[in-house]
């Protein structure tokens, strides 16, 4: 079990940016992307997102399992949404659809509009995931605390975030040790009858000792922090963060994207668009 934060983008162009930039750019992008269904806008946005992702130089081999997970989930979202909603897609009534054929049994129409919708979903979620990856892999784990503190998150919460990242490897190790100890006693989590509820109930012998042990063990950390006067005054951070000129340019571009897309959305110009090519195929 290796869930420790991995600094895979070390030395890349993106990792040399102020880490606050990566958070702010992601926020701008996500709130821009959720307003857009028009493939003509989404395609260039997704291209920018993947160029941004490339600038983090995250090795494909190290994250291909993560991408497989993303692809699986996006496919699920797209397929289920289109199957369940059937003929009603983004304001299109069924009589307005350009239908190719209907699925057997459930009679869901497969149409030009549905394909456009599926393409838009793929681009939206794929590009949002691409923008999110650098936060995990191109920010030094030690920079998490100061990054959020300098983003005006109260310093206690910023410190809690910092602590969370530091605790993850030791919690994972504790979990593995406990699982090994329980297996010696005959414990199995995933090879038991009873379906999902059976598997859930089987997690008790693992979750309870790990949790209680972690809470009891936390007393040392609490004492250490209290003895150093944590919480008695405003905290400073050893790591200084400063935006460079490039950071300001990238941030300005991200804000411009968000403002532009919001304006287009308010003007009704980001709705689902269906290419003529797809419509002609239905004739």
């Amino acid at each position, binding site marked *: 079990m290796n*869930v420790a934060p991995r600094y895979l983008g070390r030395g890349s162009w993106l990792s040399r940016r102020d880490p606050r930039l990566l958070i702010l750019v*992601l926020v701008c992008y*996500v709130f821009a992307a*959720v307003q857009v*269904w028009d493939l003509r806008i989404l395609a260039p946005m997704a291209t920018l997102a993947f160029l941004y992702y490339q600038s983090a130089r995250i090795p494909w081999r190290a*994250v291909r*399992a*993560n*991408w*497989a*997970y*993303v692809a699986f*989930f996006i496919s*699920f*979202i797209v*397929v*289920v*949404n289109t199957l*369940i*909603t059937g003929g009603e*897609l*983004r304001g299109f009534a069924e009589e307005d659809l350009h239908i190719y054929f209907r699925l057997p049994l459930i009679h869901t129409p497969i149409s030009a509009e549905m394909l456009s919708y599926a393409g838009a*979903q793929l681009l*939206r*979620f794929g590009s949002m*995931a691409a923008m*999110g990856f650098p*936060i*995990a892999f191109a920010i030094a784990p030690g920079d998490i605390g100061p990054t959020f503190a300098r983003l005006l998150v109260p310093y*206690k919460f910023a410190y*809690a*975030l910092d*602590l*969370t990242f*530091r*605790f*993850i490897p030791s*919690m*994972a190790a504790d979990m593995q040790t406990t699982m090994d100890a329980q297996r010696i006693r005959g414990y199995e989590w995933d090879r038991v009858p009873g379906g*999902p*509820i059976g598997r*859930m*109930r089987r*997690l*008790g012998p693992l*979750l*309870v000792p*790990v*949790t*209680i042990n*972690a*809470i*009891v063990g*936390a*007393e040392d950390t*609490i004492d250490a*922090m*209290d003895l150093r006067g*944590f*919480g008695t005054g405003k905290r400073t951070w050893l790591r200084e963060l400063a935006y460079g000129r490039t950071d300001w340019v990238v941030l300005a571009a991200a804000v411009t994207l968000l403002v532009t897309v919001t304006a287009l959305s308010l003007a009704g110009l980001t709705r689902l668009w269906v290419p003529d090519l797809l419509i002609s195929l239905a004739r």
Partner: protein
Amino acid sequence: MTTMTGTSSDSMWEVTTRTIVYAAIGAALYAVAAQFSFLLPGTANVSLRPGFALVTFFGFAFGPVAGLFVGLVGNALADQISGWGLMTSWNWSVANGLAGLIAGVWAASMMRGSNRLVSAAVGSAVAVIVGFLFVFTDIWLGTAESFSVALSDNYLPVVISNVIVAGILTPILVAAWEPMRASMGR
């Protein structure tokens, strides 16, 4: 200090060193425990996360602030570790956080007397049902195409699975923690 006895609800919003450390531990545990997730059969994007019981448990045990943090940050990190991305489904992380927050408020105001385990189970159910209403923002975000999709494919599956998870595991965690808390003088 916030306790499971619900006797100090006026200080439940206080953020002490203890709150910070326990919240961080809970979030890390939730993120790590997410590896035991599995996709709920018949749903679009709902993972059954048995570790969700930690969200309501930390809310009950250490207050609404810790519960909020464990749900919000723990779920975001779990998504990140699994590959989905820190903010791709940010509204689900908020929903998790709200469930933890409500569990904490419930503990401070409702968990009195000797039926604390039953109260933990009931409080968990209430926290999940109310907190996860936030996933209806999927309609605005486009993850769910319509109200019926959001209801049948996202809200109901996650509420049912999380109520079962929290209903089974949270009282077990509370039962294990109560004597430890007493022996530690908390």
